[in-house]
């Protein structure tokens, strides 16, 4: 609505005179001369510029365009990648047996609510490419004599923990919504690479893109450009705490043989805390699972070299591995854990006693096949931006925080950022604030960090605790901690409740 091309060819002094003339003119019409920079170039104004069109950036664009208070604001979405045909959902619909993509997300209930509010969830549901997780079965490699699955988290039907959806499908649904919004402009193949963030709110932010002569001016720059965010480093006073886990996530799409009598067949997420790191199988349908196998760099490289059949064997071995089960110290640890479980049971009598008494006899699933070319691996790391916001700038998603995928929270945290930021902007704009108002942004930062940081530390803690090779800690102690950790989960329904509420991202 307020888009206006301004060709600044005149000198700075000329502009100043212009400005004064305008100021004194009776109709008080102001043009965007706020950010008079030294260079003369073409600048195009958008109320909001979003850098990075991943799941989080796209959801941000949709959400903002749906806010009543922001209606009519111009939004520019800059995506470094191409306009991929995978986002074409019709193609997906027409070929029902089209193989699943190897990148999937466990989408929590609060994320579903966000996607619903922007009309994307209905599209995903119509495609039928969302699969509810009704039970989560967790076990570890040191399960010892008890063997089998030692932790089961069950979720009521109408209160599903999460849905497994392919990232492509989410992106496709979001792009479909974006294309229907007139006030959103998308530029593909456009990498942002330089920013001029103002010191005061009197000036606008300027965004420059790689090898483009146009630069953009905006009242609010939102960085959703992933964990290597460029926007993040442009924020003044930024401190980024980050490290790489010496681990990679190996992903693949698998066929599994599941127990026909399993009530939750096709809706069970499996997670094993193996020696080298957690292995998760996320259900896509009765027979298909998406694998996220966290392992050491060396092991990931070795796995990459294997043929598909060798890979399946290695995975099955890892799922059923009991490497240290005849180690006496481990048995001790196991006993200690059981004693603790008994003690806890005594004091934690709870309303879902049935579930606790239910005999857990499930066995790990057996992988029988693998979808061709579905194997890939990704580096893993931890990252936390101390400043989510600055003058006319805010970060959302992985640009602000990066976590280990073991709890499947990455994109969910990002979606919560979207909801939070959008609410804050909506409120502040209704009371006459500039869309880039620092107070509103600071409110967003406080709320988002208050929610994200504990989850990030928790996940990092679990990673460290189970985190495979820790040579400094004797294996027996590690196993003890693991077992105790898991047994507490299993026994204490309060903790269990807490865990599942946190994992589904809803306020407890």
């Amino acid at each position: 609505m307020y888009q206006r091309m301004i060709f600044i060819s005149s000198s700075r002094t000329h502009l100043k005179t212009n400005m004064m003339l305008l100021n004194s003119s009776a109709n008080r019409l102001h043009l965007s001369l706020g950010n008079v920079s030294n260079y003369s170039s073409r600048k195009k104004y958008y109320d909001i510029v979003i850098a990075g069109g991943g799941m989080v950036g796209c959801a941000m664009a949709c959400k903002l365009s749906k806010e009543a208070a922001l209606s009519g604001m111009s939004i520019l979405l800059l995506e470094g990648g191409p306009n991929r045909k995978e986002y074409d959902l019709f193609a997906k619909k027409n070929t029902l047996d089209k193989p699943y993509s190897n990148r999937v997300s466990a989408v929590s209930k609060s994320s579903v609510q966000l996607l619903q509010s922007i009309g994307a969830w209905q599209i995903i549901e119509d495609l039928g490419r969302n699969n509810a997780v009704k039970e989560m079965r967790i076990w570890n490699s040191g399960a010892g004599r008890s063997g089998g699955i030692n932790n089961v988290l069950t979720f009521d039907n109408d209160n599903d923990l999460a849905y497994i959806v392919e990232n492509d499908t989410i992106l496709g649904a979001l792009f479909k919504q974006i294309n229907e919004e007139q006030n959103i402009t998308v530029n593909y193949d456009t990498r942002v690479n330089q920013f001029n963030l103002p010191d005061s709110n009197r000036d606008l932010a300027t965004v420059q893109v790689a090898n483009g002569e146009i630069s953009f001016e905006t009242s609010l720059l939102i960085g959703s450009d992933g964990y290597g965010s460029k926007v993040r480093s442009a924020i003044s006073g930024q401190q980024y705490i980050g490290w790489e886990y010496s681990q990679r996530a190996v992903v693949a799409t698998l066929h599994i043989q599941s127990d026909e009598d399993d009530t939750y067949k096709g809706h069970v997420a499996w997670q094993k805390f193996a020696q080298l790191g957690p292995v998760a199988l996320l259900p896509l349908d009765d027979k298909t699972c998406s694998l996220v196998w966290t392992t050491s760099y060396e092991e990931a490289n070795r796995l990459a070299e294997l043929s598909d059949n060798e890979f399946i064997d290695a995975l099955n071995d890892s799922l059923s591995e009991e490497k240290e089960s005849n180690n006496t110290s481990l048995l001790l640890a196991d006993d200690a854990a059981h004693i603790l479980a008994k003690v806890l049971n005594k004091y934690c009598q709870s309303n879902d006693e049935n579930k606790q008494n239910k005999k857990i006899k499930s066995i790990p699933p057996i992988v029988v096949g693998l979808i061709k070319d579905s194997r890939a691996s990704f580096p893993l790391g931890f990252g936390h931006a101390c400043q989510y916001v600055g003058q006319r700038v805010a970060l959302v998603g992985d640009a602000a925080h990066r976590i280990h995928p073991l709890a499947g929270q990455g994109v969910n945290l990002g979606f919560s950022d979207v909801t939070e930021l959008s609410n804050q902007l909506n409120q502040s704009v209704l009371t006459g604030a500039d869309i880039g108002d620092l107070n509103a942004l600071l409110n967003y930062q406080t709320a988002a960090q208050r929610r994200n940081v504990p989850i990030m530390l928790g996940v990092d803690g679990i990673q460290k605790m189970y985190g495979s090779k820790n040579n400094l800690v004797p294996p027996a102690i590690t196993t003890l901690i693991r077992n105790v950790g898991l047994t507490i989960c299993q026994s204490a329904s309060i903790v269990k409740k807490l865990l599942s509420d946190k994992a589904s991202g809803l306020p407890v």
Partner: protein
Amino acid sequence: MNLIAKKTNISNSFFIFRTLTQNYVKETVNAHEVEHHSNMKEYWWNSNGPLNALHSFNPLRVSFIINGLTNMKKIETKNIGTRQSLENIKILDVGCGGGILTEALARIDGNVTGIDPSKELITIANDHSVILRNKNIIYFNESIEEHALSNTESYDAIVTSEVLEHVSNKYGFLTKCIDCLKPGGSLFVTTPNRTICSWLSVIVLGETLNFIPKGTHEWEKFICPHELQSILENNCECDTISINGLSYDPFTNRWSWTDSTDLSYALHAVKRI
């Protein structure tokens, strides 16, 4: 560390605020000399800076104004709950300073005039208003007395926020404000109360703990809600619509509504038709 920074910020803010507002209205306040501050612009418009209490006050005072005007049926139905809520409403911001509130009102499409007796502040306000696009905002460097001469009964709403406590002749100031208001128009005031409580917190705690420099506020100049109400009702032909208590937390820089008007309050009155 943070605390000290906050304290300095707050004390700066009150200091600057005082120097800027003390020469308030040319006729209604004994003119004090304005202390020139080297980078005043920075002070007014840095929302994380010394005047952050005024910036963070905006959401509350703007919604107070919107709600007041909605209750008086002045806001067009189609604009309720949008960012055009003040469309076609003529507003005068008396003592607009650097324009923190003025701009907010203009951004939600109010037709806003800001006046302030300080030339320097009007310059800052004008300079900053460049950021607004196609909005109706105009500033004049004049007092309410001067403004009232040529603007009788021409505004739908008059706003005077955190100003009255610096004005000596409240009666003169308020009657001139009301002169500019159309019959049926609304007056919105926010100001600290004159109570033991505000004396304790502003003068004793604030100033002895150095949150606020000594002598910033002349507590005797503060006005109680009932005094304000009686001037408005007996001398200005107004009816009081509402009085709401306000509180401010300097550590989180947040304002909130409270039941008690002991510290500070917002008043809405309407000029009789």
